[in-house]
């Protein structure tokens, strides 16, 4: 071992450098994930990593550098195209060549970055998040909420100092209809690494008192960077989707919707548009109310006028109706009267008949009575004639009286009694011996 030639580290590294420069003179397009990315003196220093598909265990790592001369061109193009900065966690397609420096070691030197690859990867990630949200059944949850009719108590999630927040508040308070809105700011960081956590914290805060609000507005002022990656996370999307109040987003950006926009109740472009939406919503409610009001007035008037005309018809026929009633009643009374008079007439007639019948029988009855009395009298006369004592005297019979009484028994007479004896031609007085 000692017999072998010894090299200095520089000599050895130089050897490596020569081999690499000789054997790998070409440039390569490489796909990798950034695990670190920082700028120093205009140069960009990156750490690249490749993780195992499932376990996320690193299976390759390497440093990469982009010198300032390239970086000043690559960076704006990348950011303009993808809407975000190069930062840890994103996947990139880099054009590199190998460099081994005796003092600084191995590094890939970046000469170009293809932003479309990153865009595609971002899109894939977004699709993955969307798929997961749909699988959880929460993707459309916000869409099933309805803005309350009187949506006037607004919880605002925004950066406190953002111009957009001021625009939003001014737009609301200066509405032309005089609507009153109450806004309550829940400050949050709206750009950079903190976005996700900051918005979730604000949402949690609102959730504790959500009954005090009608909706939540998440706004971000114009002029902020176009880095939207913070709004595309699963955790934020889940929080928004499951939120009990409708959430309106106005986080202003030009490219495709963020996932936050997709799961929110309504998405508008700017804070001002969010305010306009709330005003328009309330105006539509007002219009509905006014429409109903005029309909009610209209129907009430219609009903009233139809009732009025019914009444005037009734008013017209009423006297006629009563005339008919009066006529019938009078006829009825008249007929009762006639019946009564005729009943009386009949009664009188029948009584008269009884009387005259009775009357006519009286003379006959009297005559009969007189005749029979006369006959009786004649009979009595005959009888009396037969009993007349003068006839007996003529025939020689006599009647003896004592003290005016007829003597029929000699024993009533005593010696010395004076008796009278009537005969036909006179009276004989005698004394008993």
């Amino acid at each position, binding site marked *: 071992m000692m017999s072998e030639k010894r090299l200095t580290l520089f000599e050895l590294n130089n050897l490596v450098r020569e081999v690499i420069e000789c054997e790998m003179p070409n440039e390569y397009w490489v796909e990798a994930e950034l695990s670190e990315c920082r700028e120093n003196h205009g140069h960009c220093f990156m750490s690249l990593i490749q993780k195992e598909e499932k376990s996320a265990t690193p299976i390759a790592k390497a440093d990469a550098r982009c010198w300032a001369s390239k970086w000043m061109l690559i960076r704006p193009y990348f950011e303009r195209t993808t809407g975000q900065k190069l930062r840890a966690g994103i996947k990139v397609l880099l054009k590199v060549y190998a460099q081994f420096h005796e003092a600084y070691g191995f590094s890939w030197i970046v000469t170009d970055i293809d932003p479309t690859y990153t865009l595609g990867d971002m899109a894939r990630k977004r699709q993955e998040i969307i798929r997961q949200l749909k699988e959880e059944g929460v993707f459309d949850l916000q869409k099933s909420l309805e803005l309350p009719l009187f949506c006037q108590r607004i919880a605002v999630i925004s950066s406190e100092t953002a111009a957009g927040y001021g625009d939003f508040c001014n737009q609301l308070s200066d509405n032309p209809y005089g609507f009153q809105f109450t806004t309550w700011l829940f400050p949050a960081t709206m750009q950079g690494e903190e976005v996700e956590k900051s918005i979730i914290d604000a949402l949690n805060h609102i959730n504790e008192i959500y009954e005090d609000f009608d909706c939540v507005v998440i706004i971000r002022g114009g002029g902020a960077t176009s880095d939207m990656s913070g709004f595309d996370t699963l955790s934020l999307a889940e929080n928004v989707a499951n939120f009990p109040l409708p959430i309106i987003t106005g986080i202003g950006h030009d490219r495709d919707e963020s996932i936050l926009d997709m799961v929110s109740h309504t998405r508008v472009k700017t804070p001002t548009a969010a305010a306009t939406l709330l005003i328009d919503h309330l105006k539509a409610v007002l219009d509905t109310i006014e429409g109903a009001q005029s309909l009610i007035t209209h129907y009430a008037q219609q009903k009233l006028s139809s009732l009025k005309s019914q009444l005037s018809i009734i008013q017209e026929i*009423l*006297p006629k109706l009563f005339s008919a009633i*009066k006529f019938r*009643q009078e006829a009825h009374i008249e007929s009762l009267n006639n019946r009564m008079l005729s009943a009386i007439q009949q009664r009188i007639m029948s009584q008269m008949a009884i009387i005259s019948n009775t009357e006519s029988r009286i003379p006959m009855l009297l005559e009969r009575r007189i005749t029979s009395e006369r006959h009786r009298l004649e009979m009595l006369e005959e009888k009396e004639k037969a009993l007349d004592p003068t006839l007996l005297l003529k025939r020689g019979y006599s009647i003896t009286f004592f003290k005016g009484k007829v003597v029929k028994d000699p024993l009533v007479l005593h010696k010395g009694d004076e008796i009278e004896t009537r005969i036909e031609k006179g009276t004989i007085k005698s004394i008993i011996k």
Partner: protein
Amino acid sequence: MKEIKYEAALAELQTIVRKMENDELDIDQMSEQLKRAQELIKLCKDKLTKTDEEIKKILAEK
């Protein structure tokens, strides 16, 4: 005659007529009942006339 309702007056009138028709009244009562009947007839007719006038008057006021 104290205030009597039309229907009551008519009913009484009908009763009198029925009694007369059925010979339920004594002859002595008849003139008295006839007089009562004529009073009732007048009352009914007056009420009808009065009501008619009142209706016309009320409607004319509107």
